[in-house]
């Protein structure tokens, strides 16, 4: 019994906010496209969720708009462009590459280069040669090792 319940739990797919099946498009292909587009769009209310994941009212309205435009046969770019025209680039969860975001996109490379540079400059510094032991030191060492 428990095994069966666990099996059903594992079968449960990722929980999207569109709990209401009436929201989904009838054509599964179109619905999949709508989900894919919606996942790239930021919910303006919760801000770190996509409109596909958010339960906010505005997110639901935007999901509806995305689905309407998908069923009208608009391209992904047209649909995302429609939202960017209203809410700005911020509505994209994945920022486009341009001069304003160049530093953002380049930051992993910059971090890697900085790390390599630091590692290299530390390695290049050869360890200083230890001065040879003085006669007194050698004597004390011998007495310590007890030979």
């Amino acid at each position: 019994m428990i095994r069966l319940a666990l099996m059903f739990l594992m079968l449960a797919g990722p929980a999207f906010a569109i709990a209401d099946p009436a929201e989904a498009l009838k054509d599964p292909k179109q619905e999949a496209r709508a989900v894919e587009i919606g996942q790239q769009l930021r919910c303006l209310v919760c801000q770190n969720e996509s409109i596909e994941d958010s339960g906010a009212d505005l997110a639901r309205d935007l999901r509806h708009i995305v689905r309407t435009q998908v069923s009208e046969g608009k391209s992904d770019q047209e649909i995302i462009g429609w939202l960017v025209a209203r809410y700005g680039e911020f509505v994209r969860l994945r920022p486009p590459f341009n001069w304003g975001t160049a530093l953002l996109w380049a930051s992993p490379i910059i971090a890697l280069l900085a790390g390599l540079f630091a590692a290299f400059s530390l390695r290049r510094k050869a360890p200083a040669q230890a001065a040879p032991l003085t006669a007194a030191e050698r004597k004390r060492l011998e007495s310590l090792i007890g030979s």
Partner: protein
Amino acid sequence: MNRRLLLAVPLVAAGAAGVGFWSMLNGMREGKFDPRGVPSMLIDKPMPDFTLAGFTAADVRAAGRPIVINFFASWCVPCIEEAPTLLALARAGVPLWGIAYKDKPAATDAFLTRHGNPFAKLARDEPGTVAIDWGVTGVPETYLIDKSGIVRWRFSGPMPEGAAQFLAEKLRA
């Protein structure tokens, strides 16, 4: 590489980050910077066309003077907070037009009776589609439209004293 220089690099970086954070926090305190703010795409652009029960974009343009448009809702708590500010603006002669966002007409009317009605004209956007065209992310949101129908200024959230003063001054000029 000079050891002293190697030590200075992280110190300078930490100092710069500190100054950046300080100015950010200071801006948040003074209300000039909102980390969650979404900049309006409409500034210095014509207002989006719309037709609502109450008034239309053409009515705003036909007013022949700058108009302040306020998106609000009866279910919105910050709108209650903003109500006295709007009433004061209306008393000062600022032409305020209201758009009720995703609100039942009866609820809107009850809200305006209870908290005072600062609006010379009232439109109803029950499905909330006009608000999306304007890029409204939440209520209240306030827009200043100049007499040729260009959006000149937007404030998201309940207007503090300073914003209301700024708006009144901008309209007097």
